[in-house]
């Protein structure tokens, strides 16, 4: 790396070059970042991952493509080489791959399920591109194709990665052991969703098609004993595996979901007078601690009937309940939340009003409202009160919907939609640029460069929906955005919102940061790579482990020709004279 040139000399050099008619050399920045650019054409389809593959605590660049996997280790100069330092080819055209530290040595591995039969582990940290066969006869299946499948996970919560093999109607879970996998699998039933299209010999518009979905069990502490349990649900049955020292090989208890569904009167045909009746769930259940006594409890919803089974997470008889509550109307969902802050979860129901098709059609031309009621049943020492403690309404005001589809308004709506999309996806985010240990600096896109603003984190900063969903899951978002919005509404009152206002309720932290800082003078600038059409999204991560935030900018290439990923590693200002900005473009 050469020493950074003073700005004055750079200006003179650029001016001279311009006078000579030569294109100025791309300025790779103010010297604050070391840049690597990866260009992926639209036909390429490669994926990237930045993760430690050699165990040095620094993120390496993994490129997964049609021919195999290549790894460029993060070099001492904090850039990635153009050609991979290590690579493998796919063992077959039926390969499912995952990138995970399967052996717990601190370096990620490339794990491949080959044709459902073998588990192959490729360890870049070893320097060898030979596969280690961790399972030779896995007994699984895979459809043709090479695809990512997140089958290397810690299922039993022991800190070691396990391997989940999709077998014929059963998952075969091989638990991680010291230096390998337990050859005896734990077997968990699942029901694949398979749809085959077999064409039509009398049609010119048919297709042969195959669609496969393999639902996964969930891993969570079901009974609240601090150990990770396993829940497997199919159409017929719920199977719960309660962990002791290890997960049992058979379910600890099961629930016959088909029999429970059969108890509920479900409409045989579409009810046009009560549209929500067609979508309300027949069966639903939640787990939580209702009475403060271990183990956790289970609340079962069958139609409009709710039964509380204390200690139900250790098995229950659906016919025997500790409490029965009945609701009326269309109960769309229910949650357990501590609404009154007394440390006990309360029961909340979301009920939709009766809406007919006629009403919906009238909304085309006449403004109306769609109302949902939130009923809260307070938990009093482990029992819910029989009558709702509060009833609050969410009233969604609807404009005449025809306004959404007339030609005149459509352009306005499209512009509005574009505006909303821009705000939701604005790529500004927080980082620790100055190394003060606080993630309170801002990085944003301005024109064709990225800019950094120091110490500009607002006090009320909140993550976007995607980040929240990673933590809370969809259930958590529903709780926050639907049930949570009426927490501050008085009993019997309504929370009104306009349909058109809904997008404004979605957090737009990137856009908010942009508005906050758009007139600030940046402390650093970094041009975007050439031939890009703006930043799609930014990620902040410490790639080289020096405590400073590094940046990954994913950009659209010009003319929809692909994707350009710009990796920017913050030069550590305390690292000594280590030269000017360097970059590699691949």
């Amino acid at each position, binding site marked *: 790396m050469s020493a950074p040139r003073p700005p004055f000399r750079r200006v003179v050099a650029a001016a001279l070059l311009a006078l000579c008619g030569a294109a100025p050399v791309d300025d790779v920045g103010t010297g604050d970042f070391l840049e690597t650019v990866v260009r*992926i054409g639209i*036909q390429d389809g*490669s*994926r*990237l*991952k930045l993760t430690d593959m050699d165990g040095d605590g620094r993120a390496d660049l993994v490129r997964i*493509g*049609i021919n195999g996997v290549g790894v460029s280790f993060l070099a001492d100069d904090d850039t990635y080489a153009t050609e991979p330092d290590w690579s493998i080819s796919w063992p077959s055209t039926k390969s499912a791959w995952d990138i995970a530290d399967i052996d717990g040595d601190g370096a990620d591995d490339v794990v491949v399920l080959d044709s459902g039969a073998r588990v192959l582990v490729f360890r870049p940290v070893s320097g060898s591109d030979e596969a280690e066969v961790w399972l030779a006869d896995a007994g699984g*299946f895979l*459809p*043709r*194709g*090479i*695809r990512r*499948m*997140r*089958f290397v996970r810690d299922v039993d919560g022991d800190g070691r990665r396990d391997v989940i093999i*999709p077998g*014929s*109607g059963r*998952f075969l879970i091989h638990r991680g052991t010291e230096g390998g996998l337990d050859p005896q699998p734990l077997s968990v039933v699942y029901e694949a969703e398979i*749809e*085959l299209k*077999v*064409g*039509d*010999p*009398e*049609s*010119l*518009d*048919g297709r*042969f*098609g*195959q*669609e*496969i*979905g393999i*639902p996964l069990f969930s891993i969570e502490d079901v009974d609240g004993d601090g150990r990770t349990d396993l829940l497997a649900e*199919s159409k*017929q049955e719920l199977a719960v595996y309660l962990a002791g020292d290890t997960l049992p090989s058979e379910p600890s208890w*099961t629930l016959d979901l088909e029999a429970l569904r059969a108890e509920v009167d479900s409409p*045989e*045909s579409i009810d*046009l007078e009560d549209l929500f009746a067609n979508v309300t*769930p027949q*069966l639903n259940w939640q787990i939580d601690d209702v009475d403060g006594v271990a183990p956790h409890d289970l609340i079962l919803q069958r139609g409009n009937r709710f039964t509380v089974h204390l200690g139900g997470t250790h098995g229950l008889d659906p016919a025997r309940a500790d409490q029965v509550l009945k609701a009326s109307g269309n109960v769309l*969902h229910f949650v357990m939340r501590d609404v009154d802050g007394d440390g006990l979860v309360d029961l909340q129901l979301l009920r939709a009003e009766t809406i007919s*098709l006629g009403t919906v*059609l*009238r909304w*085309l031309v006449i403004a109306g409202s769609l109302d949902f009621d939130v009923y809260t049943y307070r938990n009093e020492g482990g029992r819910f009160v029989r009558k709702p403690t509060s009833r609050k309404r969410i009233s969604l005001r609807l404009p005449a919907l025809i306004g959404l589809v007339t*030609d005149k308004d459509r352009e306005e709506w499209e512009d509005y939609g574009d505006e909303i999309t821009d705000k939701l996806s604005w790529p500004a985010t927080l980082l620790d640029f100055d190394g003060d240990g606080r993630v309170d600096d801002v990085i944003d896109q301005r024109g064709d460069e990225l800019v950094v603003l120091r110490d500009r984190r607002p006090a009320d900063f909140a993550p976007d929906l*995607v980040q929240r969903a990673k933590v809370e899951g*969809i259930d958590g978002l529903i709780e926050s955005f639907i049930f949570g919005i009426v927490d501050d509404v008085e009993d019997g009152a309504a929370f009104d919102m306009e349909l058109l206002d809904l997008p404004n309720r979605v957090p737009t932290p990137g856009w908010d940061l942009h508005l906050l800082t758009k007139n600030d003078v940046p402390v650093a600038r970094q041009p975007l790579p050439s031939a890009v059409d703006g930043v799609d*999204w930014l*990620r902040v991560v410490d790639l080289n482990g020096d405590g400073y935030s590094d940046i*990954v900018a*994913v950009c659209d290439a010009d003319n929809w020709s692909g*994707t350009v990923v710009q990796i920017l590693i913050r030069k550590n200002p305390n690292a000594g004279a280590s030269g000017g900005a360097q970059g590699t473009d691949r």
Partner: protein
Amino acid sequence: MIRLVLPLLLAVAAAPDAADAVSFVEHRVTVDGEIFDRQFVDVDGDGTLELVVAVATRKGTDRSRRELRIHAFDDAGRLQAEPRRSIVVMDDVTTYGFADLRSEPGLELFFMTPSGVFSYSPTRDGYRDNIARLVETPMFFDVPDGGSMPLWRYVLPSGTPGRGDALLIAEKDGFGLWGGAPDGPYERLSHFADETVAGALFETRERSSMSAGRDRMRFDFDASGGILLEDDEIPTLSLLRTRRSIRSPALVDVDGDGRIDMLDRDQDGLAVHLAQDGAIPAEASRVEPRPEYLDGKIERTLFDLDGDGDMDMVAKVTSGSEGLGPALIRLLVLINDGDRLYPETPDQVLRFEAHEIRFQLSDVDRDGRLDLVVAKYEMPSLLDVATGFELRRNQLIFLGRGETPFERQPSMRNESIFDIESLQAALVGRYLEEDLSGDGLADLVEIDLDGRISVRRLQRDSGWFGGETWSIDDQAWQRFDARGSITNLVVRDVNADGLGDMISHRRDTLLLLLSRRTDR
């Protein structure tokens, strides 16, 4: 004159209605599991159809087991409740079908697996000394569904002594035609590659699913942020979600020589592969570019409209409308002249302004020519929505008569208007295909969302001075208590009495309403 007319009138008045001599007998087949398919096939080659019911049984949480159960009809046309044969289907079977594959009389079953095709004789018990490998090749369908198994219909009857029926098979990289001597094994006669397969081999984005609560609300979406993989991702509830598809061809007699040819899609045109010497060549005999009159959203259906043995086409072309307004929908009738499927100009164009039309071709008046039956749907205007909702359904019949494929004006217009209260009555399946009443005219079979079936008769009244008026009775001629399913009702003559029957199934029960002539 009066002496002539009066007896005639009396004779007409006294003539028995053919429908009085027809009744329907309800048959039910209830299984210990779930019915996922049923077919009528002349398995033993005796000229009468058998009923093949495909069932998925399950014991507790054990995986379901699939079975094919063959039921025969007795001489009186009654369905035998007990299956004549039950065949357990192996776990690795993806699809099945019937074809003449062996030198034994009747048809054989063929089972497709991820590694190829096997033949099986339904006249023998069990698999030992019965199942035989017919084709060995990696197949397109490589994951069996334990609870279902679709019927494979790409069978080309041999017509050549010493040759079994040929099979068109979806292979891993396209489709191929396989054939050979009876009793196999078969060889590949021709192969049709699909160039999209290679590109789809490496999946660039995985799909995933999420669920709210523990119920059936589920969302499918592309997971993992796309090009850059991250460790912290939104928790999902699927290990794997994948889909792929390739084009499928049509197998029809294109040139009327009595041999089955193949029609394939060639970019925007039609590749015609004419059969030669018992096989379909990989090279197209000709490629017909898409004509300019086929612009817009197109659905093409193949029929032999003029009875000359070669396939003609009816193309439904929809030119879009914006917002809530009706669209211009054209039915283009394209008669195959033996040398090309796409004529220079359509042989007939019928235009409709509607939100949707459905059409079918059937010989409604049993004159040997196909007629065009159209159901036209018009949604309400904005004014109607505000002042009173109305959905109009018009049932039209264009008879196949004269020089043009169909008459220019419909012989029958039957309009129904539905308001909000009666809208549910519009949501019915309607079939005007078979004569159920024995009067020589097709009858209208309707099935509603609850599975209730009724039959209304089509009436043709001849005027004194010539001309005809056609109408559908307002009142049902037959109503049935038994319930089928709107998703799978079939109307066809399965007991060979010349009258249509009705077949449908719900979960574990197959319902057959079989016609019976009481005057025989």
